[in-house]
């Protein structure tokens, strides 16, 4: 199975995609997802602790990811 992850801005550039299918089974933790994404091509351009949102809410690394969650890897924000 795999878990879809949304990418934006510099991360979309790094991975050459706006969405990744991460080979991992749900449920798992956000930290597991980040670890696998880091090993994918372009993953070396991620910072030490990238921001993650689940269902449009900021989450910590130890939050569990469920099937059907909307997961996004968020570059440093720069609005305004």
């Amino acid at each position, binding site marked *: 199975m795999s878990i879809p992850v949304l990418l934006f801005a510099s991360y979309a550039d790094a991975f050459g995609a706006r969405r990744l299918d991460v080979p991992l089974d749900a449920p798992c933790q956000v930290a597991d997802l980040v670890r696998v994404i880091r090993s994918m091509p372009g993953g070396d351009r991620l910072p030490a602790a990238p921001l993650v949102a689940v269902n449009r809410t900021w989450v910590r690394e130890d939050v569990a990811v469920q099937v059907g969650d909307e997961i996004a890897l968020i*570059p440093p924000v720069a609005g305004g």
Partner: protein
Amino acid sequence: MTAPRSDVLHVAIVNAPIDVGALLSRAQAPGVGAVSLFLGTVRDLNDGRPVSGMEYEAYESMAESELRAIAEETCGRIAGLRLVVEHRVGTLDIGEASVAIVAAHAHRTQAMDGARDVIEALKRRVPIWKREHYLSGDCEWIDPTKVQA
């Protein structure tokens, strides 16, 4: 007399140019004695490099809900505050507004604090990114954790 109700009047991520006059009108009410407007605009120089334009991208659904949460929290702290917030995405020219925050209140301190609180939280929490396009032809995503322009 009870404290007037706070009100998040309008929060949106938009693609078209921001109509500042319309946003100011939305915040009006007979009890308003002070209005504070904050506008972020695209400038021609950043970190000493000549800029030709700016491209804004958002995780739109989350950006809008975070922006709304910020507005609700700010209204929760400041009784009687009326807030109107728009952030634009897409490609902007020098001088165009990327964000507009209107905070209206019976009194000036609350209005000014309201606008300031919203822009500061927006900068920290709302998933929006900007890519600067330089006169030299290249472009770069801005990372506020790396440079403090």
